[in-house]
């Protein structure tokens, strides 16, 4: 049932990309996304696609997993394409009453869809190769400078990692409660919308109770182990840059340099 839903999930493969410091991957993803928006030439997209293809190859994550992420934005892609196709002004190549397709429209629509595909695949590469814990760790350390302006970076990171940790737990709990109520003859699949919504009450009430119980237990357990916020807290595995991370930054810099050069020169 619910177990089949995938959400920002990690794919263990132990590749070079997996081993990179999460800060490298976070910054890399952000820069990659920016590069998709700043450099608008077709050659740039070609380069960006090649770069991503290389990274995916290195990550050893099956391409089917990447494509699965695309399915979620399929409708968004279609709508974007249609709007750009019909609403971009320019040289008309096809017209039916008030609907017209322009040469520029075709160009923009195609580039937009490519940009969206690269964007989603680029960010799924990060979530597929980084555990949620590493990701929040990386964020905490990478954004540590914000503490100086009194942004509660540690608290935000802690809340994020707890929230991420609770997703699979609560999904499993939902699955269990749904099964338990099915065993009592509950029916979640038939009936109209109102009946279906009503049939969820026997699931939601126990689920909320269990979420509060778990939150309570976790808070107790954290206090019992002396948790008192981020002040003076050390890590078992502090994030440190290794040779591989420096190389990765270098590769990233090269990528950006080439993108800029292509944009300016060609």
């Amino acid at each position, binding site marked *: 049932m619910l*177990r089949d839903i995938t959400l920002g999930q990690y794919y*263990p493969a132990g590749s070079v990309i997996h081993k990179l410091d999460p800060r490298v991957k976070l910054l890399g993803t952000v820069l990659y996304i920016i590069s998709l928006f700043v450099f608008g030439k077709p050659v740039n997209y070609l380069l960006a696609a090649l770069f991503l293809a290389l990274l995916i190859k290195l990550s050893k994550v099956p391409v089917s997993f990447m494509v699965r992420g695309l399915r979620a934005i399929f409708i968004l892609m279609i709508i974007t394409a249609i709007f750009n196709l019909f609403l971009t002004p320019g040289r008309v190549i096809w017209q039916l009453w008030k609907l017209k397709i322009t040469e520029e429209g075709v160009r923009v629509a195609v580039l937009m869809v490519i940009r969206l595909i690269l964007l989603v695949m680029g960010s799924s590469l990060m979530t597929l190769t980084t555990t949620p814990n590493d990701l929040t760790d990386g964020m905490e350390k990478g954004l540590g400078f914000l503490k100086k302006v009194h942004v509660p970076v540690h608290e935000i990171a802690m809340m994020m990692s707890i929230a991420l940790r609770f997703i699979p737990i609560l999904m499993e709990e939902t699955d269990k409660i749904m*099964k*338990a*109520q*099915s065993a*009592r*003859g509950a029916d979640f699949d038939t009936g109209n919308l109102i009946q279906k919504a009503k049939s969820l009450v026997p699931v939601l009430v*126990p689920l909320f109770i269990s979420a509060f119980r778990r939150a309570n237990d976790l808070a107790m357990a954290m206090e019992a182990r002396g948790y008192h916020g981020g002040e003076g807290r050390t890590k078992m595995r502090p994030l440190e840059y290794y040779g591989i991370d420096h190389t990765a930054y270098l590769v990233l810099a090269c990528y950006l340099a080439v993108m800029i050069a292509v944009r300016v020169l060609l």
Partner: protein
Amino acid sequence: MAIRIEHLEYVYSAGTAFERKALKDINLEIQDGEFMALIGHTGSGKSTLIQHLNGLLKGTSGTIYYNDESIYGQNYSMKNLRRHVGLVFQYPEHQLFETDVLTDVCFGPKNLGMSPEEAQREAEWALEQVKLDKSFYHQAPFDLSGGQKRRAAIAGILAMHPDVLILDEPTAGLDPRGRDEILNLVRSLHEQQGITVILVSHSMEDVANYASRIVVMDHGSIILDGTPGEVFSHRAQLEQAGLSVPQVTRVMDDLAQEGWPVEKNITTIGEAVEQILKAL
């Protein structure tokens, strides 16, 4: 014959990096009126297996027959199956959701299409069976004690009048008194109502006193199947599966080993007392 399982296999998350075979070629027959215990270490597949018995999980391959009819048949009604095979999950009190105990127990019968009056009659009957006093009927389930909540939840299944009652670790997290209450309740249901019982547990002590047949699972397969005496005679094999024989069996085995004239494979304290008195 109530339930027959043939070559049942089940694979979790097939086709991904997390693929795991939870059940491997399970063959099992459960007769009407049996009191069977299903035992295994955590992760041995026992909870997965029982969820197949009322159709909550569908086997990757293999078939299950209920009263000689395949439950995977085209027009087989799962709802009907669930009315006959009642499954009480682990920590069943976590599924209580109504504002009072009686209404919560009515949930099952109502889902079967009974009128409110009929459902209430069944619910009252079930609550009587689990020996919950009338004074609790209109209390919120969350105000009850742990043992009472659990009995109310079991009543929720009983109110559907199942022919087969499956209980997954019904004594988990209860104190010794609560544990005895639940197990005695299950026994009286079996004896007085003639309900077929499948009790899932990892405690040998619990099942030795109650079940007439024990099935042991390890790593998704059935490794032992027989009466408590037969099963407990395979002490080494049980220990390898991460289980132990009951304390009393161990003591009597050790006594026999030391040369005392007592029988091996004793499963209950009563038998042990008899044997020791005879030896003295």
